């Protein structure tokens, strides 16, 4: 079959990569290109649009504060979630890295286990903690601390809680991978030169773990800002994020041109975040994190 071909012939490489490339072009690049074209189509009525090109969708998006509200809320929730993840996630990552506990693998395994549990189940489980019949309210009422259940579910706080629950393992693993690559003798050296442990952490460990922290922040922001299920299950009607807006515009109102416009907006927003990040850090850290 390959007589007369060089050992690592380019033709063979193209044959091997062709199905994946075809798939990515047909299911990823072409759809994004078509969505971009769709943003200039005219909405006629639910489910019907015409190919008359117009800027109306973009005008509507740029002038209507309804959309700006969603955009701002999505960015805010994404950023808050990512930052809390970074703060809360750094401690466990550091602990696992530094501990002398012999069964370290168990701690790591426990971080991977949530990835196996259905995301929908993990999310709705929070209803049992935060809801009116949830653990916190039932316990507080029994103890007589409160007489009426606290309204914790269906709030922005609940959405952020659910997102944290989903994203913390990503953050912890990213930081951990980064910590693992630090040469430990550097820290011993800093200490023997008279650094306090706090100084050694601030001057050596923390800066060297920044790539993992950065990758974790980006990943958490992108995944939080693109989420759909969490706000759907844990948020009230006012806590919907951009993903929910897109879903309603397309599946509810059947306004495809506007839905495409909103999708492209979200795509550009998250793409800009990723581009800004890769300028400073490079994408290789993300790949490490994803395959960890």
């Amino acid at each position, binding site marked *: 079959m390959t007589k007369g071909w060089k050992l690592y012939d380019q033709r063979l490489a193209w044959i091997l990569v062709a199905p994946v490339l075809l798939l990515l072009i047909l299911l990823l690049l072409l759809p994004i290109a078509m969505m971009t074209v769709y943003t200039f189509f005219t909405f006629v009525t639910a489910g019907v649009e015409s190919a008359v090109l117009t800027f109306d969708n973009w005008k509507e998006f740029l002038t209507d504060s309804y959309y700006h509200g969603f955009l701002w809320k999505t960015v805010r929730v994404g950023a808050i979630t990512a930052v809390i993840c970074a703060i809360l996630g750094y401690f466990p990552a550091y602990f696992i890295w530094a501990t002398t506990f012999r069964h370290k693998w168990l701690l790591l395994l426990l971080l991977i286990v949530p990835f196996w549990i259905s995301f929908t189940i993990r999310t709705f489980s929070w209803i049992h903690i935060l809801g009116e019949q949830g653990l916190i309210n039932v316990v507080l009422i029994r103890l007589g601390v409160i007489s009426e259940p606290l309204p914790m579910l269906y709030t922005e706080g609940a959405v952020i809680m659910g997102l944290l629950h989903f994203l913390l393992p990503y953050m912890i693993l990213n930081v951990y991978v980064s910590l693992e690559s630090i040469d430990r003798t550097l820290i011993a050296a800093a200490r023997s030169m008279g650094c306090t442990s*706090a100084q050694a952490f601030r001057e050596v460990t923390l800066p060297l773990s920044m790539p993992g922290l950065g990758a974790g922040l980006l990943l958490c922001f992108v995944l939080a800002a693109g989420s759909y299920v969490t706000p759907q299950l844990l948020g009230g009607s006012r806590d919907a994020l951009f993903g929910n807006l897109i879903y309603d515009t397309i599946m509810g109102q059947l306004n495809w041109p506007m839905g495409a416009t909103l999708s492209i907006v979200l795509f550009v927003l998250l793409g800009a975040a990723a581009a800004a990040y890769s300028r400073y850090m490079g994408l290789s850290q993300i790949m490490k994190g994803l395959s960890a």
Partner: protein
Amino acid sequence: MRADHPDREGRWAWRLTGAITLCVYVFMFAPIIATVVLSFNASMFGGFPLTGFSLRWYEKLLTNEPVLDAFRTSMWIALVTATVTTLLGIMAALALVRFEFRGKQAINTLVILPALVPETILGVGLLVMIKAVDQPRSMALLVLGHILLTLPYVVLIVQARMVGIKRSYEEAALSLGAPRVSTFREITLPLLIPAVLASILLAFTISFDNTSASLFWRPAGVETMPTQILSMLKISISPEVNALGTVMILLTVGIPLAGGLILQSLTWFKAGK
């Protein structure tokens, strides 16, 4: 700060780190444990307080036709997705690791994209495309979509393993006259097996678990397991949903754990000889 001679400050920092770590782990598992516990609750309602032990919600589950249908649908989709994605992923990883060709870097980045682009956008994209060619949503579309979603992970896993396999093994076989296909079958594939198994498992779980994109892609009237759970939750948190959740947790956590343990004991067994 666990250095050789921790100072006072360091000891306190270390204790704080331990305490926060414990809290994070509790945070990660408390809701899941609550769901499992509540699935055995006798109460008519899905929440606390606990009123007694009962298995009736599990019995009810076994006769719930929509749930069983959704389970079968998801199983099928996940099996097909895992098989096809792993095959395609191995081919692509082989090309991306072993060969040098123009555009390799671009393809490398392109392959990762589906993992970074939000599912809602991928969801809308495919729908816009089939709308443009005037096709209805079909099972084929749903499976193709799942292949797209799982591809980045499979390629990354196989690539990582492939980098660790010395190409001189393959080159030795080839230079001794083995055809390329048998070289792959006899040399490369056996060394790749751990990555192949990991890919199949991961692709299966991602597909089985996918919610947001499936909501866009599923044909009218078809429910996958997660979308079925979502529509059950729209009505109320019934104890039945808790039971369903618990069954799913046992399946998705139990199977990989059992697989891992079997692999472990096999290697111990071999080493023991």
